[in-house]
């Protein structure tokens, strides 16, 4: 890549972060001390109306100290690295910890752990400059202009490094790059969308994504209004992700303990279709994130749903103790009231293509993207939301044209019992949930309840 400008900022090395962590541990006189030091550089080129209208870069550093005093714990965070500020962060954490009742669930901090190595740092991503991103954006804006279309979107790149250490000898570190390209192509009365996200920027092809969004906008011109109702519906991976993302906290041991998980009373029972198998697996080749949790516990691969049956949950150390289970390495930073959650969901895929799903549909709906999804009923997991940026009617195995956007009110539990076909799983990026590895799905009886004006 041409480099006319420097990348977002000079990254802070893991060694520097470790030195800061060691300084904090040296300062602290708490019974136990844990320190997380993280540095990020992020840059984002934002475009709309075929021009760059926002273009930003940031570098941030955060030092977060957790102190334990007499069976009580609290956290203080600063972004200042001078001795006095670090000392003040320790003093704040200790003072907050002292001034609260004892926590009966608090466990001693972990000792040193062994971690499986994951490699998700790509120098090419880290070296991407504002000029590199601007060049790609200029190209897709020109493509749009040539087709009498309007492009809007983002192209971002960055890197993050983090170190965790505690006074009982635990030390963990992780480094990752990140990049994302998202594009909406607009026409007078239609639009299309595509998005990709990866730690390796060389796997992102802005031109191809722009072309895909352009075709969607073109195909959904002059959208017709059709009646809402229950339709066989094809959901691409991004739409699947945005729906099933709402399930993630339901797999937390704490959620079941608090009886606010949709799996309460349903564990061990066949609730979903037998073609649904879900893992949490940070080590999956398409996943990202650090291989340890908020206490430094190594993350484990957990089979959450086995052919339709919810068999396992994830547990922080404290929740595991309460529920007589084994900690799985999914706890949040302490102290917190939520416990844990799986953050690296991977769905088993199938072998059908989206083209085959369309070909086998007599009358149905093809979605591009879902939007503004919110939970209506937490136990039946009814979600509401809208379709967006390219919604199509399928008739006799073919795309018959664009239609006006629908509102849906659909139980995800029910939807995962109605899956007729699955594509191979891919790393998908949506807007309502974190990235996952999910397939496209053909689902029967998806409930579109109302229609909007465009």
């Amino acid at each position, binding site marked *: 890549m041409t480099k006319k400008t420097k990348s977002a900022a000079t990254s802070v090395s893991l060694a520097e972060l470790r030195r800061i962590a060691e300084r904090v541990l040296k300062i602290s006189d708490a019974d136990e001390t844990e320190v997380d030091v993280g540095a990020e550089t992020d840059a984002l080129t934002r475009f709309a109306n075929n021009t760059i209208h926002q273009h930003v870069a940031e570098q941030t550093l955060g030092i977060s100290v957790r102190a334990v005093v007499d069976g009580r714990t609290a956290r*203080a965070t600063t972004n200042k690295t001078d001795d006095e500020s670090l000392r003040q962060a320790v003093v*704040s954490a200790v003072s907050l910890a002292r001034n609260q009742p004892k926590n009966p669930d608090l466990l001693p901090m972990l000792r040193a752990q062994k971690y499986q190595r994951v490699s998700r740092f790509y120098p090419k991503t880290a070296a991407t400059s504002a000029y590199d991103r601007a060049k790609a954006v200029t190209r897709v804006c020109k493509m749009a202009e040539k087709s009498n279309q309007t492009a809007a979107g983002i192209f971002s790149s960055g890197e993050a490094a983090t170190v965790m250490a505690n006074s009982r000898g635990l030390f963990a570190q992780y480094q990752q790059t990140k990049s994302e390209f*998202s594009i*909406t192509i607009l026409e007078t009365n239609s639009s299309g969308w595509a998005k990709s996200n990866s730690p390796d920027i060389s796997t992102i092809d802005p031109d191809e994504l722009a072309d895909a969004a352009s075709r969607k906008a073109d195909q959904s011109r002059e959208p017709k209004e059709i009646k809402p109702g229950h339709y066989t519906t094809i959901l691409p991976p991004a739409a699947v992700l945005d729906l099933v993302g709402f399930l993630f906290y339901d797999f937390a041991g704490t959620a079941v303990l608090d009886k606010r998980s949709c799996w309460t009373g349903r564990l061990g029972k066949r609730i979903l279709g037998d073609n649904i198998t879900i893992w949490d697996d940070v080590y999956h080749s398409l996943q990202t994130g650090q291989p340890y949790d908020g206490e430094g516990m190594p993350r484990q691969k957990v089979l959450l749903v086995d052919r339709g049956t919810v068999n396992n949950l994830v547990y922080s150390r404290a929740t595991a103790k309460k529920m007589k289970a084994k900690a799985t390495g999914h706890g949040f930073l302490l102290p917190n009231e939520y416990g844990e959650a799986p953050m690296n969901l991977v769905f088993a895929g199938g072998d059908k293509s989206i083209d085959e799903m369309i070909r086998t549909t007599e009358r149905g709906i093809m979605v591009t993207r879902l939007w503004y999804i919110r939970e209506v009923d937490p*136990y039946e997991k*009814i979600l509401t939301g809208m379709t*967006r940026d390219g919604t199509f009617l399928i008739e006799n195995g073919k795309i018959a044209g664009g239609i006006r956007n629908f509102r849906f009110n659909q139980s995800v539990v029910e939807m995962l019992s109605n899956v007729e076909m699955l594509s191979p799983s891919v790393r998908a990026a949506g807007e309502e949930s974190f990235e996952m590895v999910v397939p496209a799905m053909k689902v029967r009886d998806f409930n579109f309840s109302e229609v909007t004006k465009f």
Partner: protein
Amino acid sequence: MQDWANWAIETAKRRGASYADVRVMDVRHRDISTKNSEVGTLAESESLGLGIRVIASGAWGFASTDRLTREGIQACAAEAVSIAKASALAKRENVALVPEKSYVDTWQNPFVKDPFRIPVERQIEVLLDANKEMRRVKGITVAEGSMSFRRIEQLFVSSSGSSIHQIKMQSGAGIVATSFAGSEIQKRSYPNSFGGQHMLQGYELIESLDLVGNAQRIAEECVALHSAAQCPEGQGTIILGSSQLGLQIHESIGHPIELDRVLGMEANFAGMSFLTTEKLRHLKYGSDIVNVVADARLEHGPGLGTFAYDDEGVPAKCTPIITNGLFTGYLSSRETASAIGENQSGGTMRCESWNRLPMIRMTNISINPGTWRYDDLISDTDDAILMETNRSWSIDDKRYHFQFSTEIGWEVKDGKIGRMIKNPSYSGITTEFWNSCDAICSRDYWTLWGTPNCGKGQPQQVMGTGHGAAPARFRNIKIGVAFAK
């Protein structure tokens, strides 16, 4: 702070910026939460840094840093200029801003009790006492409470001579009771859902809420919801409580009037707006009694959208948004006002922190009080569902079609509030909805609600907004679609 800002501005100018503005921000947070009589989150944080926005080669660039040495700041400013020059690759025309005067000023929102000086054990005690009251009620499975406090000190300096120092103190708190029974999870929150009430006030706000005194009531309502009647499906009259009306304003007025959305700048993420520019001063947005303002001035109240100057140095203003039902104004910035031929900014640019670009955000978007006494409104209603406290909210990307559900409802029959209704929901098209409003309660029932969690932008920024509202009645509304089979 002034030196840091000056170093950044000087460097940007030297590197070729035709305009630059700097925000130095020092943000302090305290967050406390409790669950089932135990402390959950207990954390404090501070963050100090600087962000610089520049125009160079006719295009925008922005960079931010927390390396507040002369060298670090100069590198950051130089990077902002380099980024602007890279932006110019895709430039169609030079960035144009409406003029704005320069100001040298300092401002702090008034408050009585600094929440950071109140001992944390006292704050925890209030939440634990409220937890205890909720857990006394049989059937409550989770009792929660939270408090959050923010102190934001910021200095705005621009290359055109402004230097504006502001300090904002913000407080918020709320409690939630949850109950699982059979195959149903019900929830009640006080004084509002999703974190409670938040204002630009000190700890006196928390004391005024009486969390402990309301804990048992909401817990009892939560458990009673399990045996309440299901919200019917159909078309009818609804009365919305003031906090739900506040969120309705947020979603179906506040967002569509953002001029950056209207002009397509948010098309990829937050979406656009049905309020295209030819509708200004022509569209009948609501019925004649609907009057809405965007008011960032302190005299409107200590809302989360209150300030003295926005984050591009424009003084706080009151803009009439809907006047006797007619659409009369947008939320604008210096750039977007210029784009539609206006001669001044509406003063609505704000950023979440020093590392974020200012963008158009709602200030206090409030409906003016009407004339009705609440009891008279109920007496005047033959058949309706009264809905209170938001549970879910969703609206399309042009802000036409919405669906809301609330935590609780009551039947109103023959002028009286009757039995409790569970799972209430309603949906509609924005302009049809606001044109169906036929009664708004008076100032005595009007509350300036704080929404602390409004997301917008890429990278996303979370911002607090204010919404003044009183209970109001709407006719011929679609009810109960969310749970329809």
